[in-house]
Every structure is written in structure tokens, then in C-alpha cells.
């Protein structure tokens, strides 16, 4: 089974993340993922990169984001690590609670966890490992 292994280190810049997203999504297309799985990976990758750059590294140009992706026809595994202070998943408010519905942010983790097969946080929240199996 063919596997694409991709590795990137980018500055804390949303524009720099576009090329990473493009290359990973190209590998997902080449591996023949279903439409639903492709949608899930694209959305979760966007959310995880924005989290790392904006909320993790707080757009600090001196900090970097490290990305690894392994994609084969069975699954895509994406690991993203920032150089920020980390966070505790348990302390992130539930955005679906009635009192939080009108808040403009805080839905990225919910979407990643809903759309990926598994999402794990490590290194005190600086590192996220997401897997999406193909349908």
C-alpha cells in the first residue's frame, strides 16, 4: 500500500498554512478518499492549523508550527504541534450550550472531534493527533 509522508515547519502565519493544506489535501485526493472523508479532513485541518497559529502561537512570528501527515488509502493521520503555552481540553467551554450559542468563537475543537475518527491532545495541548479513516 502506497503511503504519502509529508512534513512541514511553517511560521505562525495563516497564509503559510495554505500551501500545507493544499499539499495534504492533494495527497488525500490521490489516495482516493470518499467525499465525506475528504470534507471532514479539509475542515479539521483548517481548524487545527488556525488553532495552532492563532490560539497556540498567538501569531507570534518567532514561533513555528510543525505538521506531519501520513496518508494512505485506508486513513489519513495528521499531527500538528505549536510552540504556545498549551491548553486543557477540559477547560474549553461547550459551544453548544445555550449560553454559548451566540459567541463568535470556540467551535473548532468540536468540529474536529465530530468529523475525525479520533483526536488526541498531548504535550499539554500543544500537539494534536487526528486520524480520519476512509469510508
Amino acid at each position, binding site marked *: 500500500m502506497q503511503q504519502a509522508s509529508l512534513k512541514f515547519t511553517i511560521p505562525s502565519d495563516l497564509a503559510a498554512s495554505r500551501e500545507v493544506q493544499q499539499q495534504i489535501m492533494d495527497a488525500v485526493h490521490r489516495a482516493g478518499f470518499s467525499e*465525506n472523508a475528504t470534507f471532514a479532513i479539509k*475542515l479539521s485541518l483548517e481548524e487545527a492549523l*488556525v488553532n495552532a497559529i492563532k490560539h497556540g502561537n498567538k501569531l507570534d512570528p518567532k514561533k513555528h508550527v510543525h505538521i506531519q501527515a501520513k496518508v494512505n488509502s485506508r486513513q489519513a493521520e495528521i499531527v500538528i504541534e505549536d510552540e504556545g503555552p498549551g491548553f486543557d481540553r477540559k477547560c474549553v467551554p461547550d459551544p453548544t450550550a445555550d449560553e454559548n450559542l*451566540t459567541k*463568535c468563537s470556540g467551535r473548532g475543537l468540536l468540529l474536529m472531534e465530530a468529523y475525525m475518527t479520533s483526536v488526541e491532545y498531548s504535550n499539554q495541548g500543544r500537539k494534536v493527533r487526528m486520524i480520519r479513516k476512509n469510508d
Partner: protein
Amino acid sequence: MSEQIPPIAVSTHKDVRVVEFTNNKILDEANIDGIRKTLEALIDEGERPKLLLDFATVDHLSSAALGMLINTNNRVKSRNGQLRLANIKPQIFEVFEITKLNKLFKILSSRTEALASFN
């Protein structure tokens, strides 16, 4: 940095401002910010604004786009206006369901239904 033209088209149907997204992705923060500013300007045109967002072309959106929509909803409400969303594809509607934002927004299946739903 050059200003980007927001990827939306605005038309008017009676007293309703109808906004179509002209890009199939509402992901990029720069685009989202441009859309937000354009929608804010439409809302601020008068009292009790009526705004319809047509999602017919939209295949992808991010949580940042959802934030922009909530900001729009809050602003419309603050001016005693009405906001409707229409033509949302099933895959995108699922994002609204997961986030429970289908409870917050008035979502209609077609533009015709949405236009008819304004008071």
C-alpha cells in the same frame, strides 16, 4: 497589503437584501473578514434590516465563518432586523447541526421560502 474584494454578490428583492456567496469555500480569514465588513455595512444601512444569505454555492465553511454569521445575526438583532439563511447543502447543514447553530438561525430550504418568511 492589497484589499481583497469580498466573494459575495448583493441584490435587492423588495425590502430584502439578498447576499450570494460567489466562492464555494468560506474558509480563509481574510475573505471572511471582508464578508463580515460588507454584511455589517448592509445591516447598518437602515433600521430593521432584512437580510437573506443564500448558501447555494457553498461547499466548505470553517468555524471562523460560523463566527462571522453569528456576528451578523447579533448585529441584525441589535437593529431589530431579520436574518434568514437559505439553500444550505446537506453536508454544510450538518455543520450547523453539530454546532447546534440550526437552533440559532432561521434556516429555510429555498430562497423563495426564505423571502416569503420575512415579516
